[in-house]
């Protein structure tokens, strides 16, 4: 079973790299009229398995963020449009994007009226306040890093059950407005409100992780059933009335079935045979040549800002010893893993955390033969020397990877690499349905794991702060995104300083982020492998393929008739 777990993230306007996807037959962001000929049919999507819980405020995977885009709405949303246009923030349930006042610490949102949840109840400001409180009650993974500046958030983070957010989020039913008060200004707060964890749910939604029981939403589709091993079914939301084509367009297809349980190989064959319309997990490398020859028009490559990396547990032998982590970084043959992922057209080797195209990215690679700006080749001898110096040769090391085809192969490669470095290495691949939670939980004593990271919102902070700040590390919890457990005071102060300068002087902040990037890369808490591109393989009958850099393939805008 294979499911690809990645954090998602948009890309800010400041994005430089050429955007237009070479092949994407992009269509304008339109919303289908009731009698549109393309309307109707069932979209069949394949994935290895579900991606853990269906709770939009708890789930932190790209697979389900892609799903939530047409099921839930936040006060704000990213524009449902092809390419970079998808990064402009547009009002969704709120009727406008307010100007911040009180020194950038207060935002007042006016809620649109007449919008209904799929359970028939109308959306009110009390739902908005309740949703923000729920975010802390279910200890959402980003509650500590994204929303900690809301007044009262600190209390909610320490004791989630009794969270009130008093003074932080004030709902005024008569005026139909919701006021957000921040403890200090946050230039990226608008992005954070457009993030799935901040979607608006019915006030009576249970204040604990709902697991597999769907919660009513406001988008054009509603989740009807979810079995992580069999299927997730979406049907049209009967109460949906179009209110903003940019924020939440109506969908073409009547039904969307996410079918789970097939291997990567069989999924690719099913799409090739036209038996399925889209495949979430990456196409295995060995099928790409055949697919790219026979179905070139059904392939879409889109650039991304993301990274694949090896998370090494800095608090567990042998990776508590920096020399060992450096040895892994040096020995890692980044060309090999790029080949596993599908070759240079789909991935570029990388050593540093910040991917190109993010403000603060300055090419830097210490972990290579003749270190400099770019990675050239592995340096096995130095790596072995470091291992000898560390005195940890012969130790037992277990690599944890998901059973997504490409990740499983990387796990096997890594096991063989560690074996070369002198360790007694084994590899354990497990269902992607649980792998991401498993490697975060310190109880499971994971030494080294294969994982990936797609930013949540377009800023260096979303890489360096979210992945390496102490706030992102929670002992014994499934939501501890700082997998390597790096919590270093010096780094903390740098991070806070960069965040603060970011509010006033973005350029100065960029230089600071570059310095932090170099510091984190030097600490070798992780071994960055490469920056991937997104490849989508769709069926012949699928029309109006739209790839929004924000939410990727916008299934609502595709038609099958």
């Amino acid at each position, binding site marked *: 079973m294979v499911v690809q777990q990645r954090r998602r993230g948009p890309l800010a306007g400041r994005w430089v790299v050429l955007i237009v996807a070479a092949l994407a037959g992009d269509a304008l962001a339109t919303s289908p009229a009731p009698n549109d000929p393309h309307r109707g049919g069932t979209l069949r999507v394949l994935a290895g398995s579900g991606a853990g819980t269906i709770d939009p405020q708890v789930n932190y995977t790209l697979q389900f963020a892609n799903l939530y885009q047409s099921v839930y709405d936040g006060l704000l949303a990213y524009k449902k449009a092809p390419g970079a246009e998808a990064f402009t923030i547009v009002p969704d349930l709120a009727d406008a994007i307010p100007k911040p006042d009180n020194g950038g610490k207060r935002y007042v949102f006016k809620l649109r009226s007449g919008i209904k949840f799929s359970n028939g109840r109308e959306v009110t400001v009390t739902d908005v306040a309740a949703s923000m409180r729920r975010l802390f009650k279910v200890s959402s993974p980003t509650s500590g890093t994204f929303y900690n500046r809301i007044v009262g958030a600190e209390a909610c983070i320490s004791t989630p059950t009794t969270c009130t957010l008093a003074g932080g989020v004030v709902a005024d039913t008569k005026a139909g407005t919701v006021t957000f008060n921040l403890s200090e200004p946050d230039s990226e707060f608008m992005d954070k409100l457009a993030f799935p964890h901040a979607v608006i749910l019915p006030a009576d939604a249970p204040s604990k992780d709902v697991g597999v029981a769907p919660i009513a939403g406001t988008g054009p589709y509603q989740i009807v059933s979810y079995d992580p091993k069999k299927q997730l079914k979406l049907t049209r939301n009967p109460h949906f009335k179009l209110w903003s084509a940019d924020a939440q367009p109506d969908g073409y297809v009547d039904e969307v079935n996410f079918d789970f349980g097939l291997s990567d190989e069989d999924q690719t064959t099913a799409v090739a045979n036209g038996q399925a319309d889209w495949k979430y997990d990456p196409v295995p490398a060995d099928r790409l*040549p055949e697919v790219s*020859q026979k179905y070139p028009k059904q392939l879409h490559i889109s650039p991304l800002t993301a990274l694949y990396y090896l998370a090494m547990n800095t608090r567990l032998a042998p990776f508590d010893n920096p020399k060992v982590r450096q040895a892994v970084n040096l020995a890692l043959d980044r060309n090999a893993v790029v080949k596993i992922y599908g070759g240079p057209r789909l991935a570029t080797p990388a050593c540093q955390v910040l991917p190109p195209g993010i403000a603060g990215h300055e090419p830097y690679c210490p972990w290579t033969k003749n270190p400099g700006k770019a990675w050239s080749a592995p340096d096995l001898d130095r790596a072995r020397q470091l291992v000898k110096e560390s005195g940890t040769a012969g130790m037992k090391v277990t690599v944890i990877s998901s059973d997504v085809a490409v990740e499983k192969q990387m796990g096997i490669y890594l096991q063989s690499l560690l074996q070369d470095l002198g360790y007694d290495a084994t590899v354990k691949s497990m269902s992607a349905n649980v792998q991401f939670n498993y490697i975060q939980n310190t109880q499971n004593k994971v030494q080294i794991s294969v994982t990936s990271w797609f930013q949540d919102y377009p800023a260096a902070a979303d890489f360096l702060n979210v992945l390496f700040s102490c706030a992102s590390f929670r002992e014994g919890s499934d939501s501890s995104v700082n997998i390597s457990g790096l919590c270093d005071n010096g780094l903390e102060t740098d991070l806070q300083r960069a965040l603060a300068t970011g509010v006033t002087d973005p350029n100065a902040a960029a230089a600071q982020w570059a310095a932090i990037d170099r510091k984190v890369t030097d600490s070798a808490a992780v071994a960055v492998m490469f920056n991937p591109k997104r490849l989508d393989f769709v069926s012949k009958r699928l029309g109006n393929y739209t790839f929004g850099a924000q939410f990727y393939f916008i299934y609502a805008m595709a038609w099958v008739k």
Partner: protein
Amino acid sequence: MAEAAGDIIAAPRQDGAPGLWGPMLRRLTADRGALLAAVLLLAIALACAAAPLYAVHVAQTDPFHSNINGEITIDGVQRPVIEANTEGLGLGQTPIGPTGRAQYLLGADSQGRDVAARLLYGGRASLLISAVATLLGMLLGGTLGIVAGYFGGVADAVLSRLLDVLWAFPVYLLAISMSIVAVGSGLHLGPLVIESSNPLLPALIIGLVGVPYVARPMRAQVRALRKSEFVLAAIGFGVPTPRILRVDILPNVSGTLLVLAPLLMAINMLTESALSFLSIGVQPPAASWGTIIQDGLALLYTRPLVALAPGVTIMLTVLSLNLLGEALRDALDPRLARRR
């Protein structure tokens, strides 16, 4: 017909061959199928035993070491083991196919490792584990069968009830239950601790699971022997039980055991490969035919040989084991162990 039968085959001729084995061996070697099976089995076993030689001298690779960026020279041309696709969009990488030469004879798998060398190493694991499991099954099943069959009474009641339970338990589910507990945290039998990566573990489990296949026919035959005159006579003479078991029961039963051995080994081979396929048998980095098939499935549609080759070798091995078992049974006595 009785009288007619008497007419045709007069008193059975004594050709002077000693005891049980003489005529059986003669009939066995006369059976062409059995000979072919024995030769094939021997060839596969030898080839697998020679896996290290093959890996070092012929394939010149370490079949357990990832060789994704490796290169090989064919007819003087330097070619990558994992070839990048150049046509069309230039996407994707495919491991090299069967080269028909010493290196990468059957091609490479997704990690660029030599499939032929891995096949031989995998064979060692599969054959070894199945053999140990068969031995265990024969010993345990045999003793259980003899004890239950011979002693009767309480022993038989208890043992046969236990066998009924074990026999009704779907084999794979029993193996899965035990494997998952063992794989999870290794087996702690008092002082003896077997970690989950130790191949002895699957052998132990498969052996245990195979016990009913031996115990049931053994018990049936020993019970019949127990009632036969010559055993009753021996007991009548006051011959001590161990001696009766050794002298009267065992030789008569050894025929059945001999027949059961290859048949049980065949079943164990299939069980081992299934458990390894479910990744609860042989644990990586070790490899067995089951795990190689699992690797092969990831390349099924582009390099099918990676999955087909181990499957065919399993089939040939199990086929020859079955042939051998059947030939043994027919050579010994057509009535014997009709179970499978």
